[in-house]
Each structure stands twice: as C-alpha cells, then as structure tokens.
C-alpha cells in the first residue's frame, strides 16, 4: 500500500491535474473583465466561453477562488419560490445544477434530498399552499404535507404539541438538493480556464475609470487593464465596488451566520427549514449537520460569529430535532449578504455603460450560481437583457416596480 502510494505519487505520469494555469501578468486589455472570482463570476466566465465564444476574459479575485460567500453558504438548492419570476428563474438553475457534475467533469456532490419548509401557524400553512400552487402551475414539484405525512417522512422531527411552536405542516419540495459549494466554484474555474479565460487571484480592483458614463479601464493592484465590458459579481462588497464606478446601490451588507456540528453517520436525509423560526438544517455528505439562521440584526462588514446567533438558533433546533443536543458544534462562521429592500437580486445594466452588475443576492445566491452565470454571460455577449432577468433590473428601484418575493429565503423577513 505504502509503496503503491509512493510509486504513483512520484510517477510523473500521474501528477495531479492542474486546474488553473499559474497566474501570469495581466494583459493590458480584455474584451470582458469579471470582478469577483466566486461561483457567479466564474460561471459567467465559463458560459461566456461555452455559449458565446468569448474567451478574451479575465476574472479578477482579490483573495482566493470561492473564498467569499461561495464557501460560506449552506449549499441548499431549490426552486419553490412564491412569485412566477422567482420560480421560473430558480427552476432554470436547478435544471442546470442537475447536470453540472457531468458537464464540468467535476463532481459537485449534487444530492437530491427533498426540502421541507415547516409551517407553525395557519397563515404559514396558507402561504405554503399558495407557494405549492404557484409552483405546480409552473411545473415545479411542490406539495403541502401535514403532520401525519411528516411523521413518516421525517421520523426524527419533533412533532410534539407541547413545544413553543408546534409543527402544523410543511411545504414539501422533492427536488430540493445540496451540493458541495467549493466544487461548484472550482469546477467552473477549471473549465473556464480550459476554454481560455484567465483567472487572476490576489488581484484587487482599486479603481474604475469611467468616461462619459462609459467604463474604460480598471485599476488593480497589478496594474491597469482596459476592458470592453465589465461584470461586477462581488457579493458582500457590492456597494463598495459600485461606488468606485460612481453609483450607489439599494443594498445593505448584513452578515449571515452559519455553523456545522461534529460529523456523524447519515441520519437526516431531507433538508429541514422553518421560515418562522429562521432555521435551516441539512446533513452534508461528510455527516456534518449544516445549520443556518437569520441574518444579523444590523449591517456590518465583518465575518465574526456571535453567541446571540448561536443561542437563538439552537433554541429552535433543539425543539425541532432534540437529538441535536448530543452534538457539539464544530465550526461557526459568517458571510456578508447583500440585502435588497425586496429580497430579490439586482442583475443587468447599470447607470454606467458596458458595466454590468450581478449583486443583491442576499441569503440565496448559491442556488442561483448556474442561472445567473449563464444569463449574465448572455447579457454581456448580446448587450440585451434576457427576459428572465428583466424583473431584477436595478432600474426597478427608480420606478417602484419591486419584486414581491417573500419566499426568497427562510431568513431575514
């Protein structure tokens, strides 16, 4: 065994696959520059190359790939939204995710688990029914289930009525899934680089030169690059980067905290979410319980965790899944979420010509990685915003045409 390892380890024929070429110097000019090397930016780079043949592209990442919110979310993928705009958009993402491992030739550990959004009040049951009907109308599999169904489908769930918030039923969404979030970023990065896109890590944009309302070039810590078009995909720092380009956004940066437990053998198959209690929990393929809660009560640019969050989250989790009391928490962290007034993203054109934005993802950006990458690539390549993105234009905050999406996430509202 040891010798086998040594033999293959030292054999030059079996050297590890190099995903991204070693970083070179920046070229003086690119057709498209993508600011932000997270899932969304890398996906856009990949689809620009695959669908539109645009490969003179640079992705600029100030630290390492997927080191921001891509690596901090709780990796849930679903499309059981409330508005037709939301359902249509996220369903496209779910469809892309399903084949992503195959397409990228990189296992993202996509695992379809079924997704339960618990309802603790009559009004929550009514909303669940509403969401289920909108979903079914648009061809998305969702159904309302009640206590007797839940007892069979999730035997671990505490259905006692002798608790603060007894469970009355749930919105069941069978296609709900989880995936390995880092792998999504790496998979896209690898394929995009293979198709010709350049990925520059440790490259921070420090200035954006705009002339006559048109973006001309970017100042980075590694020099100036002129660019045809720019895509900003820097969740958490969106306001700060857009300010460099000269405009403000309807976004507050609010941390969202999450944690994982000690890994144990697989005991919880589905993803359990409670919108009223601000709780979501699933068991990863590693066996860790991944848990998340509500966004923090006020904005800050900081990723530290707090005891307040842990207390609030655990109070509810122990009531829903009492066995969790046996498990210690292993890690706790926070990501910076872009919160918009209508809990919907901001995508497409900006006041600056040739400068496109992909922001405002709040607490639900990971599940949209594929579709936003694909559609933003289309927007950049054609210069026309696709119909599916129209409801999410930045302009809606000027015309008071907000998206009424309250099914956006289980948190924050």
């Amino acid at each position, binding site marked *: 065994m040891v010798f086998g390892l040594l033999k293959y380890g030292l054999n030059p024929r079996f050297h590890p696959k190099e995903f991204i070429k070693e970083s070179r110097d920046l070229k003086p000019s690119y057709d498209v520059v993508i600011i932000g090397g997270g899932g969304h930016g890398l996906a856009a780079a990949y689809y620009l190359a695959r669908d539109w043949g645009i490969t003179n592209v640079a992705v600029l990442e100030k630290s390492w790939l997927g080191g921001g919110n891509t690596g901090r979310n709780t990796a849930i993928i679903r499309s059981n939204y409330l508005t037709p705009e939301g359902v249509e958009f996220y369903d496209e993402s779910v469809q892309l995710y399903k084949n992503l491992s195959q397409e990228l030739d990189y296992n993202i550990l996509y695992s379809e688990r079924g997704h339960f959004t618990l309802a603790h009040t009559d009004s929550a049951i009514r909303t669940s029914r509403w969401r289920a009907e909108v979903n079914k109308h648009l061809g998305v599999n969702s159904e309302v289930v009640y206590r007797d169904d839940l007892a069979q489908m999730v035997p671990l769930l505490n259905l006692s009525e002798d608790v603060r918030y007894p469970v009355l039923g749930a919105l069941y969404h069978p296609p709900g899934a989880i995936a390995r979030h880092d792998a999504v970023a790496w998979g896209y990065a690898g394929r995009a680089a293979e198709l010709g896109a350049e990925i520059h890590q440790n490259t921070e944009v420090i200035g954006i030169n705009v002339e006559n309302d048109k973006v001309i070039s970017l100042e980075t810590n590694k020099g100036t690059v002129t660019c045809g078009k720019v895509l900003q995909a820097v969740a958490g720092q969106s306001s700060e980067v857009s300010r460099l380009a000269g405009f403000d956004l309807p976004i507050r940066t609010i941390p969202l905290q999450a944690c994982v437990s000690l890994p144990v053998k697989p005991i919880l198959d589905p993803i359990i979410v409670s919108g009223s209690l601000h709780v979501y929990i699933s068991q990863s393929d590693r066996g860790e319980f991944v848990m998340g809660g509500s966004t923090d009560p006020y904005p800050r640019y*900081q990723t530290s965790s707090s005891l307040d969050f842990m207390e609030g989250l655990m109070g509810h989790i122990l009531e829903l899944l009492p066995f969790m009391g046996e498990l210690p928490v292993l890690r706790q962290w926070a990501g910076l979420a872009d919160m918009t007034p209508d809990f919907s993203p901001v995508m497409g054109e900006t006041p600056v010509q040739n400068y496109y934005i992909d922001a405002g993802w709040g607490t639900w950006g990971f599940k949209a990685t594929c579709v936003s990458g694909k559609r933003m690539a289309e927007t950049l390549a054609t210069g026309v915003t696709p119909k599916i993105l129209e409801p999410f234009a930045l302009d809606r905050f000027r015309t008071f045409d907000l998206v009424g999406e309250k099914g956006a996430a289980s948190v924050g509202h």
Partner: protein
Amino acid sequence: MKIINCPLNGQRNAQEFVYGGEVEPHPNPHLVSDDEWASYVFIEKNLSGKVLEWWCHVPTAYWFIAERDTKLDEIFKTYDPSKIFKERIDFLPPEDSSKKTTESAVNNMHNTDSIKKNTTEGNS
C-alpha cells in the same frame, strides 16, 4: 459590540437596541423629482467604515444617533438627535412651504416630531 451607550439610559445590553438606518437628509417630497425620492427611499450608502446611524432603545422607544464603524463593529459616540436636527422641518407643498417652515422653525426648536419623521423613513 455587546454594550451600547444610550444617551438617555446609559450603558445597556446591545440586544435592547434596534438599527434604524443611515442618517441622511430628508428631501421635501413635494419638491423633489420621483427619481430623487426613489433614491431617498431605496438607495443606501452602505459604507464600509465610519457611518452615522439611527438606533432605537426599544424598551424606552428612544431614538438617537450613533457614530459606528461597520468594519470594526464599534460605536464610538452616541447622542440625542437634537444635536443634528436643531429645528422642526415641515414638508409642505411649495406654495406655503417658505412661510410655514420659518414660522415653525422658530416656534418648535428641538421638536421631537421631526426626529420621528426622520427615523420612520430611515427605518423603511
């Protein structure tokens, strides 16, 4: 940030407070364009660094202004809104705005109504 120094109640646990948005000038809705009004309602500065914000001590329903650093998550200074909002502002239609505003400004220095108006908007 675990303790906040409330100008009215002294040092209190941070959980007793709610955030109320950035302090920004309230435009007169009768005089500004729709665009300017929309921008007042929705657009945020969302600065990484030093900011000026509304906070409320919930048990006493007392609104005040705090200087905070969003990167360090530290409040440096808190004070009563009267330090910034020195006179009452009435948002009246253009025809009588000049008359009334001056009049009321003289009569209602430090009136809490203007503070409430601002906080409601900041909180939206």
